[in-house]
C-alpha cells in the first residue's frame, strides 16, 4: 500500500475531456473481531484487524461521452469503485478525479425519507444533488409524469410499495440530466411496461454523446447492448480493459 495520502477531486467541469480517472486507487476495508476492537482502533494503531482489499491499485480513465461496462463477479470490487465515483466512499490511497455531476442508479429507494411525500422527497433529493429552486420547479413535472404514481405522489413514502419507491428513484435519476450516469444492472423496475420505458430512457441517455456512462453488470448480453468498451474486474484489480467483445470473452474464459 502506498503511503501517499489519497486525493479525491470532484468538479463540475464538463469541458474536461476526461470524465473519470482512477489512478492506483485502493480501497481497504478493515474488519475487526469485535465492536470493542473497532472502537479502540479509532484511537490506537496497534489494534489487530483483517484487511479486505475491495479495490487494489485500480487504474483506468474514461473519456467524456464514453459508455463503459464494468464486468466482474460478486465481490470483484465493482460497487466499491462506483461508490468512490459517486463520492460517498473515500479511497485508502490513490487519486480519483471525477469531472461532472454524477447520477447513480444504484439502490433506487435508498435515501428517501419515509415521512415525506413523494414530491417532497423528489424536491429534497434534487436540491441535494445541486439544483437550484428554479431548476427543481422546472424538472419536477417531468419526473412526476415519468414515475406514474398518480395521487400517491402526494402521499408519505411509508405508504409506498417497494416497486413504487423504485419507480420514484428511477424517475428522478434518469431525468436530472447528469453528466455522468452510473447504472447498476438492476434495471427491471416495476412491471413489464414500465421496465421497457426505463430501458428506453436509459438507451436515450447512453446514446447522448455528452453523457458518460458507467454500466455495471455480471451478465454479458446487456453490456454488449449498451457499451463499446469493457473493464473486467477480479479481486479488486482491472484484469482487462478493451473493446466490449474482447472483454466479455476474457470474462467468460476466466469463469
Amino acid at each position: 500500500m502506498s503511503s501517499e495520502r489519497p486525493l479525491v477531486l470532484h468538479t463540475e467541469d464538463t469541458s474536461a475531456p476526461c470524465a473519470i480517472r482512477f489512478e492506483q486507487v485502493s480501497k481497504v476495508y478493515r474488519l475487526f473481531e469485535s465492536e470493542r476492537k473497532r472502537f479502540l482502533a479509532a484511537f490506537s494503531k496497534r489494534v489487530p484487524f483483517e484487511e479486505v482489499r475491495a479495490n487494489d491499485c485500480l487504474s483506468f480513465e474514461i473519456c467524456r461521452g464514453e459508455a463503459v461496462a464494468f464486468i466482474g463477479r460478486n465481490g470483484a470490487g465493482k460497487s466499491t469503485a462506483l461508490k468512490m465515483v459517486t463520492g460517498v466512499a473515500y479511497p485508502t490511497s490513490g487519486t480519483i478525479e471525477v469531472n461532472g455531476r454524477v447520477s447513480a442508479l444504484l439502490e433506487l429507494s435508498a435515501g428517501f425519507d419515509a415521512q415525506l411525500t413523494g414530491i417532497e422527497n423528489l424536491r429534497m433529493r434534487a436540491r441535494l444533488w445541486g439544483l437550484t429552486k428554479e431548476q427543481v420547479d422546472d424538472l419536477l413535472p417531468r419526473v412526476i409524469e415519468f414515475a406514474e404514481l398518480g395521487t400517491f405522489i402526494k402521499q408519505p413514502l411509508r405508504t409506498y410499495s417497494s416497486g413504487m419507491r423504485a419507480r420514484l428513484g428511477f424517475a428522478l435519476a434518469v431525468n436530472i440530466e447528469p453528466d455522468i450516469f452510473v447504472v447498476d444492472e438492476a434495471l427491471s423496475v416495476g412491471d413489464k411496461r414500465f421496465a421497457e420505458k426505463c430501458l428506453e430512457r436509459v438507451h436515450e441517455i447512453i446514446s447522448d454523446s455528452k453523457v458518460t456512462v458507467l454500466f455495471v453488470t455480471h451478465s454479458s448480453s446487456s453490456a454488449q447492448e449498451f457499451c463499446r468498451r469493457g473493464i473486467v474486474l477480479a479481486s479488486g484489480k482491472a484484469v482487462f480493459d478493451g473493446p466490449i467483445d474482447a472483454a466479455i470473452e476474457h470474462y467468460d474464459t476466466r469463469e
Partner: protein
Amino acid sequence: MFATIKQIVVDNYTWRHQIWDLALVDIKKTYRGAVLGWAWMFAKPLIYIGCFWFALDLGLRASDTVGDYPFILWLATGLIPWFFMADMLTAGSGVLKRYSYLVNRIRFPLSAISSFFALSSLMVFAVCFVVMLAVALACGIRFDAHLAQVPLVVLVMYLFFVLWSIMTSPLTAISKDLGNLIKAMSLPLFWVSGVIFNVSAVEHGWVSTVLSFNPVTFFVTAMRAAVCDRYWVWEKPELLLPFAAVLTVTALCALLAHRQFSKGVADEL
C-alpha cells in the same frame, strides 16, 4: 488544523441552501402527522414549565432564591434553552446515524449534517423564546438594553452545539457505548446544571467553580442575565472565562474528530 477549519466553513457555505431546506423539512416532519400539529411545539415546554413552577414555586417555595421578577419568567428563560441543549446533547450527537442516507448514499458534507440539525432545533427554540418574551411583555414585564445580548448568546450556543455534534457524531457512529453514555448523562446533567435552581445561591464555593466549566450552566445563566438579572455577561469574567476555555477545547476536539473520522464514517455506518 486550518485546512479542516477552512473545509468546514467552505462546505457549510457551499451547501447553505440545502442546509436551510433540510432544517425546514426536518421541523415539518417533526410536527406533521399529529392532529394538533404545530401546537406540540409549545405543548412540551408549557407542560415542563408549568410542572416545575408548581413544584418549585408553590411546593418547595424556591422562588426567593432569584431576583425581584416572577419566578416563572426565570424558570422559562432557563428551561426553553435547555430543551434545545438537551436535543443537541442526545440527538445532536447521533446525527450521522439518524441521517445515514446523507452519509453513505449521497455526497454531502458531514459537518453540514450537524449544522442543519442544530438549525432546525434552534428554530423551534427561537419560536418558543419569542413567544415567551411576548407573553412576558403582555403581562407587564419590561426589559432593558441587556436583552440585546440574547442573539449573541444564542449564536454562541448554536456554534457550541454544532461543534459538539461534529465532535461526537462520528464517535457515536462507531460506538454505541458513547451514544448510550450521553443519553444516560442527559438527565443528570439537567439536575446539576442549574436549569431549575439558582447556581449563585449554592453556598459551597467549589461547587460553583466546577459548575462554571459546565456549558449548560453558562448558557442558562447568560440567558437569565439578559432577560431577568440584567447584567452584561462580560462583566463577570468568572462566568465567561471558564466557558471560553471549554469552547476552545471543544472546538479543537471537534476539528480533530472531523479530520480523523470524516472520510471513514461512510464505511462504518
